[in-house]
């Protein structure tokens, strides 16, 4: 996987329970549907909170999405 940290347009569900679920994002003008979230965790490096989602598409393509809480920007972090 390569580190990209590229901001992306995202459609996500913010549940009333506080749970966040990425649904669909745009990568190079192509819409990508998030198949499955394998793992979720949050990080607080340098005091900067990010929600991280390790996702998988087509059964083998693993990538990582991150939501930065302060700036409210979604990143395609690794692919």
């Amino acid at each position, binding site marked *: 996987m390569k*580190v*990209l*940290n590229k901001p992306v347009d995202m459609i996500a569900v913010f549940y009333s329970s506080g749970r966040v679920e990425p649904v669909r994002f745009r990568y190079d003008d192509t819409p990508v549907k998030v198949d499955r979230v394998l793992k979720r965790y949050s*990080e*607080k*490096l*340098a*005091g*900067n909170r*990010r929600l991280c989602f390790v996702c998988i598409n087509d059964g083998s393509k693993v990538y990582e999405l991150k939501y930065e809480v*302060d700036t409210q920007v979604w990143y395609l*972090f690794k692919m």
Partner: protein
Amino acid sequence: MQDRIIMHIDVNSAFLSWQAVYNLQRGHSLDLREIPSAVGGNQATRHGIILARSIPAKNHGVKTGEPVWEAKTKCPGLVLVPPDRHLYMKCSSALMDILREYSPRVQQYSIDEAFLDYTGMEKRFGPPLVLAGRLKDRVREELGFTVNIGISCNKLLAKMASDFKKPDRVHTLFPGEIKDKMWPLPVENLFMVGKRTAKKLRSMGILTIGDIASADPDLLKYKLKSHGLLIYDYARGIENSAVFPGYYMPMKGMGNSSTIPFDVENTRTARLILLSLSETVAMRLRYSRSCCSVIAVSIKYSDFRHCSHQQKLLTPVNCTMDIYRTAARLFDEAWDGSPVRHMGVRASGLDRDNHIQCSVFDHPRYAGNLQLDKAIDRIRNAYGIKSVVRACFINSGICASLGGMGSENWPVMSSTL
């Protein structure tokens, strides 16, 4: 009274490691801590001292506080990053949040240092040494940077201990260890012994902290006045101030000054610069929950003449506009009309802001201004210092919030514990 357990937590090369971690989080492959790098101002605008440097830069002889150009000569490949106050605040408060989980008595002492009173917390979190080790590992795992922790029975010894071998370590310095761990160190390693005091001490044949401890207190007092007695106590590990909970940092004052990239020759420009300086001083006052009762303005002319002027206020303030108005009046009184290249605004006579006394002489919009400042601080904390800017700065070519994070602004070592 039960012996206290005090910890001093100190971030290792704070500004630099914070920037390094932030860069890594954003996907940079380079760790600034592993290459010769430094945090420093911008040479082009005549500012420029090294605020923090990496260990590899240190090995090239780069020193904190030296001009950027000098550092560049010693180490041509030095990677420079500009200071990022907003990031430092975030790292600092994330650290303080963790510390406050372990004790209700945490005193933030500077942007990257805090005292934690662990007395009585052993029952909950275990022996101090064990907890300190856990705490430092947790900060490294969670926040990505390393700290040193010093443990003792008072603030002075805890602070001395955290300064031993770095990085990422826990040290103790209990009274029984003073003789072995502190007395062999040179005098300038003692808190509150500066370059000038060290020179005087050396001329008296006092070379180590142990020499101070065994010196004749009368002689120290004769040569160094009351300061001599203070360091005599410190050298023997005697100090008993309390850990003041909260953000409040007992400082004598905080100032902000800036060398201007051009010469200032008219009142309008001078006022803008004063406003910009007052803005940052006032923000810092409010952040540290303080207000000030003395305001001073300093002026350096382009021919290097220097003057300053100050006023004691009727009531303590921390509103941007109150500080600016006083600073502007002081400037008008002091300025002789020649070109100015450096200006400063300083607030002193600090006190906590929880008992501000209203006065009939207050500006009629005082309460409103206070609310406004609070709201603006909140926005700036969330979205950066440039998110809200006064309209008068637009197209003025002057930065709306002058002053970086020099040691003058956030004393790396303040003089009271």
